[in-house]
């Protein structure tokens, strides 16, 4: 949907070094055309994913594949595994209520969210280079299905595990806040602040989103009652004669028109404001998952460091006693050392990435929210002005009736 400039190299240049004069590389993705497949319990929704690109690795200029929700989940999980430290764009939730799985509104909301998901990946300077993305966008359906079913059991984290990680992180934050020290915990003041910020932010956002959803409902309810009221007014007008009766009828008609405007705004509010808030909440939850990964990496690093320390002590002991085991021990020690360095590297990579990601996240969110606010205000202004205009047109007639 949104053509994105690519950075093929890591440094952020926008031009391919191989073809200085050719057009700039781009990768544009859309998720469209939800269609119900299958019957009964097995039924699901499939989406068309259209990729338009001029990248050499991709089958261009355009490729269309059919994907379903679990394919998107596969992509998210793979990226999460591979790119620790990066805030993976969030996915819309699985539907918990069977009844709503196939309502038009739900399907549209999900399609929009999936479209945003893929586009965010395609416009992330690191993620866009992922092989998994290419598979997702290009592979035929059978390959995709094979890939998807392979992942179950190997990479797929069970929800319970994820929950446990969240809980750990939360308890660690509260422990620190409450002053209980736990040794295997990264606790620089800036990082603590960040963690606290993320957790509180989620609460605030969740509340705002809840009210936004309620506001959508209120618009619908008001629209509904306006429609009923209009009908009642028309009926009442049948008791009146001539001019007054006509006036009643027109008031009733106008109420119906206003009711329709209300319903339209309710939908607009849902898709352009409430969903944006929901997306914000999901993004924050994704950050929490990354925080958990970072904690994991830190723990590994610390544990390895511990192990290495003990190993050193052992080694020195063996040296002093000139044991035969010394050679083996030294080899083990080297391996451990390498692992330790690897763990440190991994951890530091995560830290580095997260720092960049936070900045990117905040900037992106200002834009996203700015747009959402704009849509909200625009919608409300449009609605209010429309209502005023509709009723205003009745005033002359009412005046005439009142003065006669």
């Amino acid at each position, binding site marked *: 949907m949104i053509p994105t400039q690519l950075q093929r190299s890591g440094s952020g240049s926008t031009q391919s070094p191989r073809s200085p004069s050719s057009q700039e590389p781009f990768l544009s993705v859309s998720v469209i055309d939800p269609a119900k497949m299958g019957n009964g319990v097995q039924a699901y929704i499939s989406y068309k994913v259209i990729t338009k690109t001029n990248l050499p690795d991709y089958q261009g200029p355009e490729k269309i594949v059919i994907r379903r929700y679990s394919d998107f989940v596969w992509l998210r999980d793979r990226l999460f595994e591979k790119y620790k430290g990066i805030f993976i764009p969030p996915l819309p939730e699985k539907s918990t209520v069977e009844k709503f799985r196939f309502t038009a509104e739900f399907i549209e909301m999900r399609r929009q969210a999936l479209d945003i998901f893929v586009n965010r990946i395609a416009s992330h300077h690191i993620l866009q280079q992922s092989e998994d993305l290419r598979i997702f966008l290009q592979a035929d359906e059978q390959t995709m299905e094979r890939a998807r079913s392979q992942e179950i059991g190997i990479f797929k984290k069970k929800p319970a595990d994820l929950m446990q990680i969240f809980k750990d992180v939360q308890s660690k934050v509260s422990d620190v806040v409450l002053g209980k020290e736990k040794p295997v915990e990264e606790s620089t003041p800036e990082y603590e602040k960040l963690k606290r910020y993320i957790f509180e932010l989620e609460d605030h956002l969740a509340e705002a989103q809840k009210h936004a959803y309620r506001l959508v409902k209120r618009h619908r309810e008001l629209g509904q009652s306006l429609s009923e009221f209009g009908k009642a007014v028309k009926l009442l007008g049948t008791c009146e004669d001539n001019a007054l009766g006509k006036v009643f009828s027109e008031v009733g008609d106008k109420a119906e028109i206003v009711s329709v405007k209300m319903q339209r705004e309710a939908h607009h509010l849902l898709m352009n404001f409430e969903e944006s808030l929901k997306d914000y909440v999901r993004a924050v939850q994704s950050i929490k998952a990354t925080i958990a990964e970072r904690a994991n990496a830190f723990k590994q690093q610390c544990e390895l460091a511990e192990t290495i320390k003990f190993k050193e002590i052992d080694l020195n002991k063996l040296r002093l006693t000139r044991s035969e085991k010394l050679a083996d021990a030294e080899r083990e020690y080297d391996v451990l050392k390498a692992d330790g360095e690897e763990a440190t590297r991994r951890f530091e990579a995560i830290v580095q990435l997260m720092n960049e990601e936070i900045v990117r996240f905040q*900037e992106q969110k200002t834009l996203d929210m700015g747009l959402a606010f704009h849509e909200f205000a625009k919608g409300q202004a449009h609605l209010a002005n429309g209502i005023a205009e509709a009723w205003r047109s009745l005033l002359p007639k009412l005046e005439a009736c009142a003065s006669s």
Partner: protein
Amino acid sequence: MMGSENQEGGEAHLQASREEMESLVLDGDDGRDHIGNSITSQSYANYRSAMTTLSSSFAASHHPLSFPTPADSDPLLSPPSPQPPLLKSPNSPKPRTTATDDPHHLDPPSYADVVSNPLDDNIEANGGSESPSQHSENSTSSFSRSPFSSSDYLEIVVSNPQKEAESSKNSIVPGNNAYVTYLITTKTNISDYGGSQFSVRRRFRDVVTLSDRLSEAYRGFIIPPRPEKSVVESQVMQKQEFVEQRRVALQKYLRRLAAHPVIKKSDELRVFLQVQGRLPLPTSVDVASRMLDGAGKLPKQLLGDSRSVMGPQDVVQPAKGGRDLLRLFKELKQSVANDWGASRPPAEEEDKEFLDKKQWLHDLEQHLTNASKQAEALVKAQQGLADTMGELGLAFIKLTKFENEEAVLNTQRVRAADMKSLATTAVRASRYHRGLNAQTVKHLDTLHEYLVLMLAVHNAFSDRSSALLTVQTLLSELSSLHSRAEKLETASSKIFGGDKLRIRKTELKDTIRVTEDAKGCAIREYERIKENNRCEIERLDSERRTDFVNMLKGFVTNQVTYMEKIGIEWTKVAEETNRYAKETA
């Protein structure tokens, strides 16, 4: 519009002995309303309704606590005034019983609670925003008609509820019965009041009395119904909100009375508003004593005592609620005959125009009920939107504060500023929505007011049908008396009777004469009530048209005004955030 000659009547005087009866009645008085009410309110003035009003009085009569009749010997109130100049009715010195047991069970619309400060206080529109009130805060009428359409006015304020203890030396029930009184302040320039401003303290029981006396005196009129009693008066009275609700209801009721062109000049109302101390209107006596009275008379009536005859002075009251059980029986029999008998009733409601009007009013009532219900739902929905918009605004204000406090990057501050702009506008819009809703309540309340009036219309029609029933009963009675007289004639011509026969013939002649007189009165009464009906319906029609137009106009104007304001606010925010639209488009 109708003649408003105030007849100079004797001032009513108190009846000390009644006080004891009153205190007896007090605690239980309220219970029975619903039974009688639900029947009478739904029935229209037709023969069937006459039957049900009679039967409900039977139901009531089994209850020791319903509307009573004062004793017959008391020259109480002066004849009710004013009368339409065309008809002279022999105004009975006897007080009347209520035609119906005021069906008051129309609760105020539930949305009256939704908006916190409906009528008398300032609406919480935004500071500086004036809603063009079509509805000026006038105290003479609950509608938006100008209070100064006629040159005389009557403004009433009910305030200052206070608990008072009733000394119960004389009552059978021991202990103190506390009750609430209300301060009723009146401002008027009507000459009969002889004063421009005055206050009295009245309790709810006085209002019931006033309402009962008005129903008796103004048969055929569309009299606004009084507020309901409560089933458990003494317990509910403790609650502050109930007292406040009642105060508001009483004020509304009195203002409606004051808005009625005929009733506002009535002695009953004047006396209620002006006379200090105890209310000098005849109070209602409990049915137990009335029934005892009636039961006592019955055997004599059945044995042919002269009191079995309806005299002219009786027929101007309805049979229901009276003590003449025999008359009740007769009229009940008549109404059954009307409905089920083979032949047509002796006199019929022939006025086609009236019947059409009744049907039309029935439809109007249906549609009003529906519209009133939808109006309530609409107001609730508007309030819901206003509240949620406000809550959303507050949630964003909290978020703004949070982002500002925790900001590490500048972009967060920018976002916080955007958010604040949205939040404050949302809160402002919420206030506008609330203001709009308050005004909507005021205007759509007209629907509810007219629903209440429909009840009063039923009563007015009931008056008519019960008067007709009296006429019919008398006609039937007369025809059977005449045939008895004939039989006596033929019998006496055959038999040399002597005294007994002669006496019977004379008695019968007397009875016929009295009954003829009564019939004449009953017919005149019926015609009078018919005329009252007609005038009142005319008045209702014209007032209704005005009120409905104003209601619609007010409703629509409010929507326009508030929506314009809301639109302006949001447009500002949309413009401020326009740059985001361009960037990500």
